């Protein structure tokens, strides 16, 4: 039997962590949560998740730093990242654009899911990236 795939949720909103944790567990994935970039950095190194969901708009911008560092790390860059984005304001198109324009050497995230997250959309993206290894 194949082991369950592990997903790391990076989001500063406790309710979002609860929501996504429940969604992924319900579909057979293992889950861990990180509330900011520092926690995420530690969790990625320690847990070696199969996929990361990331909200870029965390207040202190630590999500951006986390993403850059992770994608610069030979040992971690293969882990797919699903970015959860709003359409306006922080984390919206302007932020995403700035995110790329200042970091051309950083590859784009493997998936995007708009906010508020639709459960089926999120699962479809996750399945495309790491399969239904529940």
């Amino acid at each position, binding site marked *: 039997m194949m082991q369950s795939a592990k997903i790391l949720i990076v989001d500063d909103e406790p309710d979002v962590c*609860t929501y996504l944790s429940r969604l992924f567990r319900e579909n057979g994935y293992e889950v861990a949560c990180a509330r900011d970039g520092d926690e995420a950095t530690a969790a990625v190194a320690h847990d070696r998740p199969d996929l990361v969901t990331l909200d870029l708009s965390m207040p202190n911008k630590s999500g951006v730093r986390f993403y850059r560092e992770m994608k610069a790390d030979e040992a971690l860059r293969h882990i797919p990242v699903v970015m959860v984005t709003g359409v306006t304001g922080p984390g919206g198109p302007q932020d995403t654009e700035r995110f790329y324009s200042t970091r051309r050497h950083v590859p784009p995230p493997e998936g995007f899911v708009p906010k*508020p997250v639709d459960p089926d959309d999120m699962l479809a993206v996750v399945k495309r990236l790491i399969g239904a290894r529940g």
Partner: protein
Amino acid sequence: MPHTATDDHRLFEVVPCFISVQDREFHIIDANRRFREVFGGRIGGHCYEIYKKRQDRCPVCPVAQTFQDGETHSSEEVLIDDAGKQVHVVVHTAPVRDDSGEIVAVMEVSDDITELRALEDKLASLGSLVGGIAHSIKNILEGLRGGIYIVNLGFRDNRQEDLRTGWEMVERNVARLSAMILDMLYCSRERSPRQLRVSLSAVAREVMGLFAPRAAQHSITLESTIDPDAGVILGEPKDIHSLLSNLLGNAIDACLSDDSEDKSYRVLLRVSRQGSWGVIEVEDNGAGMDAETRSKLFTMYFSTKGAFGTGLGLLVSHKVATEHGGTIAVRSEPGQGSTFTVRLPLAGAPERTV
């Protein structure tokens, strides 16, 4: 209609624009009334000294360009009036020629567009306000959607625990939305506040009582020095109450979000009278703010509290203070804490207090 030089000069005087005439050395050799009223009457000085308060010529100068090519040039400039205030203008230049056709002077005609610029700034910040609010609402919707998802799982599997978790998420996010909409209504209201007599010390004691349990719960020392004769202002009691609540709530949040070890936190509310002003100060020794955060505090949709702020609290506070003829200011250093100071004009002799 007879036409004389005197007539021309009378017209020149009353044109509702700034008009000045410069010679080749950039001396102002003539200026109309409007120009003299705003920039002073010193005919003969250098233009850049008079309306830009500079020592040297401006790097880009439409007057110099017109001397060079005899054409009209236009540009947008920021001038400084005699009181030190910025005046935004659109300036057009024209050559003044003598009988032989040689350019002997250049005339500048400037339109004051300061109010237009201020309006543009206001629209821009309104745009970012709406964008910020939309984003916050999206986050709240995400919480609601999550709650609904978990409640549905609870129904499907008949599991109380899921029902409870999901329903709490729904309740919490509905409460966030309500708080946000109240703040939005405060921000959008354009009427002037009612003119009721409000005792600053009474409101201060009321709000202190409201926050005492929360401070105690987190071991934050909440103290106050309230001058009973701090005075009475004319205004809307609910507004003053919400202003104080915002500041005290923020001060407690600033202590909670600080991550230094072994610090004992305290929040101090001071209410006093300084001449004809009532002064409210809220001081904390919490996380403090850097210059960037300080600069957008009162004017932009902005939150450092993630899920826990509406991003509107200090906008509301600023609006309340200014609507009541007062001011709000902040002193803050990262790691040291913040002090917010509100000054409100006191009412005359007390008759009846609300």
